[in-house]
């Protein structure tokens, strides 16, 4: 992005009347163009909010961090450069570069890194924090030639990396990946000596834009995809199964097809990370299942559900898979080596992210693997991620039982289900936040919530948060429902209520309301309901309790609830 383009982006949002988000940019250098680029990149990633950037004082990064903590900002971008750790590592102070000063510089950097770590860690308790560590080349401080990594440089990097690691592991900060920075902004193109000496702004325009883009991506990360549908022939393996047979397809070095093995390996890793993996292939199902019996396959068939293998149109296979998964197409990636199949699927399912598997081009295939990892990338993994596919299969069992005509009450009674009601308001629990922002069908009003809004909600003394976990004889589903709202003299108001579709048909929604009535001993629960394109299940549920329900506050009395509530068979635990 050029500076002119950044200004055009900013001007197109000015005066839109939207609510404003305040983001702090904490640097030791003059932030000038970095501030402009950051605002533009943030605006592009958050289209329904105006953005205000507040900066600090020149040459006082620790002070700027403290001021950021006292501000009302929702998030903070911290950019640390070498002079912030020791002024002798910059060009604007003449502190000396003699060999006998190097040990003192190392000590100074180590101490300052620890100080900054402490200040940033405190900020991260209350706000989203994104940090970029030194991206500029070191000045000619040490006596070692540039081509050799001397002890001095390595000790500086060690101090910085230790700080970064601590901030990630212990304080939940988001660090700009230096490898990604290296890919996008070559080291030799970052430093503007003229601008640094004359204005205190050390970045080239090119580097400032890249830095701002990466920081914006950490502050407003993309929503990860949920599922991947893959083709098989010349995609998951090299060769056409129907032509060469089970032993004829390959995915290894000996057959020059290792890239397919790497693709299988990635899908297996994604499956373990909670991504649903499905197969859509024009093939014979028995042959496909035999191939998945091979000892050397890297994607176990247990990691795949469903297999939609037939000679019909791929778009129809995908439609069936989406139905079994019960997720929307916008959360799905489709991978196929055939551009014709991709075009056919894209026409029927324009919201699906179709990716071409460039068979025969190992370099391009590898780039695809990196891109797929990014499409599904997330900050951390939860217990629910590990059990996602299993819980999907459990949901199928329950749905079949419900539709089978047998007594559903008998089936539920035999499940041995247990609900855990957790009333704590923990900021460290990312699963509740994830559920609110990903759930579409059982979602009381479809509203999404930003990280800063979530923090405010958890600090509301009149607020409540209920997170519900479920397990039965088939195993755990993990955390599957979230209710949130406020308590007042007038009763309980629920402004947020979501439930994972994997938990449908178990009457958990009734159990949640029953628990809410009981916990607060209220006669009325008010539900802030809005109909959306996708939340039909909520409407059905509310209609069953109170016929004629419409958008707005739905006032439900305990008597009304008790009259309509079916038998519940779950045992409960309350935290």
């Amino acid at each position, binding site marked *: 992005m*050029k*500076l*002119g383009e950044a*200004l055009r982006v900013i001007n197109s949002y000015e005066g839109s009347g939207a609510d404003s988000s305040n983001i702090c940019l904490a640097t030791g250098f003059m932030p*000038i*163009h970095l501030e*402009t680029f950051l605002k533009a990149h943030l605006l592009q990633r958050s289209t329904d909010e105006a953005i205000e950037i507040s900066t600090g004082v020149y040459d006082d990064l620790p002070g700027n961090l403290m001021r950021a903590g006292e501000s009302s900002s929702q998030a903070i971008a911290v950019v640390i450069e070498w002079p912030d750790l020791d002024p002798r590592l910059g060009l604007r102070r003449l502190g000396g570069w003699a060999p006998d000063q190097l040990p003192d510089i190392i000590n100074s950097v180590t101490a300052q890194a620890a100080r900054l770590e402490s200040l940033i860690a405190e900020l991260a308790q209350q706000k989203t924090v994104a940090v970029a560590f030194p991206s500029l080349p070191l000045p000619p401080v040490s006596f070692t030639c540039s081509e050799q990594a001397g002890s001095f440089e390595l000790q500086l990097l060690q101090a910085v990396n230790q700080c970064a690691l601590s901030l990630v592991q212990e304080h939940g900060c988001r660090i700009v990946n230096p490898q990604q920075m290296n890919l996008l902004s070559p080291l030799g193109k970052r430093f503007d000596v*003229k601008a640094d000496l*004359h*204005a205190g*702004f050390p970045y080239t*325009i090119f580097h400032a834009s890249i830095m701002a883009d990466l920081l914006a991506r950490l502050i407003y990360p993309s929503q990860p995809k949920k599922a991947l549908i893959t083709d098989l022939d010349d995609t998951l393996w090299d060769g056409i199964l129907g032509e060469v047979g089970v032993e004829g397809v390959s995915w290894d070095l000996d057959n020059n097809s290792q890239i397919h093995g790497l693709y299988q390996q990635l899908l297996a890793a994604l499956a373990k990370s909670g991504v649903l993996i499905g197969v859509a292939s024009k093939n014979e199902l028995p042959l496909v299942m035999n191939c998945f019996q091979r000892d050397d396959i890297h994607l176990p068939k247990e990691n795949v559900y469903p297999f939609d293998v037939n000679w019909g149109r791929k778009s129809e296979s995908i439609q069936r898979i989406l139905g079994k998964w019960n997720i929307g197409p916008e959360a799905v990636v489709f991978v196929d080596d055939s551009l014709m199949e991709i075009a056919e699927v894209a026409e029927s399912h324009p919201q699906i992210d179709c990716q071409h598997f460039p068979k025969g081009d190992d370099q391009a295939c590898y780039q695809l693997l990196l891109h797929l990892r990014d499409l599904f990338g997330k900050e951390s993994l939860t217990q629910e991620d590990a059990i996602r596919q299993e819980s999907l299969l459990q949901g199928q069992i329950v749905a079949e039982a419900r539709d089978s005509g047998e007594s559903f009450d008998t089936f539920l009674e035999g499940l041995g289900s247990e609900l855990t009601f957790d009333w704590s308001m923990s900021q460290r629990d990312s699963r509740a936040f994830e559920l609110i922002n990903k759930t579409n069908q059982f979602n009381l009003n479809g509203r999404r919530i930003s990280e800063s809004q979530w923090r405010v909600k958890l600090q509301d003394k009149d607020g409540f948060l209920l997170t519900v976990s479920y397990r039965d004889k088939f195993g755990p589903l993990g955390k599957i429902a979230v209710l949130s709202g406020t308590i007042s003299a007038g009763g309980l108001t629920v402004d947020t209520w979501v439930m994972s579709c994997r938990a449908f048909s178990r009457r958990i929604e009734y159990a949640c309301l029953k628990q809410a009535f009981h916990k607060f001993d209220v006669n009325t629960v008010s539900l802030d309901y809005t109909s959306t394109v996708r939340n039909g299940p909520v409407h059905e549920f509310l209609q069953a309790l109170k016929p004629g329900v419409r958008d707005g506050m739905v006032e439900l009395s305990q008597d009304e609830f008790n009259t309509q509530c079916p038998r519940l068979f779950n045992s409960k635990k309350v935290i």
Partner: protein
Amino acid sequence: MAAASMDSVEAWDSLKMMTLIVILEEEFETEIPLDEIENLTSFGALQSFLSGA
């Protein structure tokens, strides 16, 4: 616009000047030497410089 200068436009300060210089360098694909910038404090001066660039 033609009469605009750092003296007549209140918002035209040294920081805005830095942004303006970068925009002009991007738009006109040129580099403006540091020793010229201090003379380019009006619309007219900028126009003359860029015409000759």
